[in-house]
């Protein structure tokens, strides 16, 4: 019984490592937005990985080989997708416009087997409550809805009201949990010495810092650790 339990633990660990590696190899896109093929691969991976964990008599290699094959097929498939538009359309389909200038394209809806409730729900999730406000609504290949509002319904931006805003860029994380993250220095144009000087001036000890960000204009924000 003990041996069986140890075997299960080891087998589960091996499968965990293989599946983690597979998901990592398939890339970040896999985790965010699933295309039809990727959804199939994800379901298959979870199914195949579960078999040797549940049943100790099934050789682990019977799972590892299909997992490796699925991942290699997926990588090769996505690389061909990038090279060939025709192949991409074949495997992923095309985005479909379902609203044009406030008009619902019922023929397209029927082809997608979308109900009017699906459309209304998708629009509401984009903070749109009136179909008439929409210039274009497009169902993407991964099933999400992209919405472009009519020009008079779009939110105002500094440019539309004739104002100019100072570009602060993206705040870069330079210190996390008291550790300096040098890889972000180039993005915000700062040096390690400058960071250390700011730290010295503000807190005296870098170990007290939970998070420190710096933007393009060298404006910093520091969050200190709180003692419980």
């Amino acid at each position: 019984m003990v041996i069986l339990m140890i075997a299960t633990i080891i087998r589960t660990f091996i499968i965990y490592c293989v599946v983690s590696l597979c998901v990592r190899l398939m890339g970040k896109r896999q985790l965010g937005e699933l295309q039809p093929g990727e959804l199939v691969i994800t379901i298959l991976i979870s199914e195949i990985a579960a078999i040797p964990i549940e049943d100790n008599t099934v050789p682990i290699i019977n799972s590892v080989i299909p997992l490796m094959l699925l991942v290699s097929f997926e990588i090769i498939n996505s690389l061909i997708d990038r090279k060939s538009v025709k192949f991409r359309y074949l495997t992923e389909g095309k985005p479909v416009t379902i609203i044009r200038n406030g008009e619902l394209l019922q023929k397209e809806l029927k082809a997608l087997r979308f109900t009017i409730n699906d459309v209304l729900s998708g629009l509401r999730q984009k903070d749109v409550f009136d179909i008439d406000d929409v210039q274009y609504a497009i169902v993407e290949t991964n099933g999400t809805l992209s919405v472009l509002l009519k020009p008079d319904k779009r939110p105002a931006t500094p440019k539309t009201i004739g104002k100019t805003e100072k570009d602060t860029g993206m705040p870069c994380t330079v210190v996390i949990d008291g550790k300096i993250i040098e890889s972000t220095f180039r993005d915000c144009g700062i040096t390690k010495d400058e960071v250390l000087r700011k730290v010295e001036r503000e807190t005296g000890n870098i170990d007290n810092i939970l998070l420190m960000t710096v933007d393009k204009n060298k404006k910093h924000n520091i969050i200190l650790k709180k003692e419980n």
Partner: protein
Amino acid sequence: MKRLVIAILMLVISIGIGVSSLIFVKKACNKAIQGLDGILQGAVTENKDEVNRLAVQVNKQWEKEKFLLNILIGQGETNEIKKTLDIILYFTQIRDYESVILFSEECKGDLMNIIVSNEPNLSTIL
């Protein structure tokens, strides 16, 4: 490009493992069948030294290959064969040649079954 190389490498490794495991299983089973044939011949002629030597040899050989066979075809089938080989060895030692013949035939049948089920043909694949 790096991913493509990894993908192709994984594809080749998977196919390599698949093909080499088929060859390994077939070879191990054939070797055991050969040994069992020798045991059967020896048992018919009641050549006790030959039967004893071959029974020990087949047992040892199976024990040696058990680790990889366990990984490739599963513990169930491998242990079943090992159990039968142990019984054959026992009957060889007490010189019960009728039982040796009976169990050798049974063991051969099991080994043939493993070979056939690992044979790469369309019906097995589908």
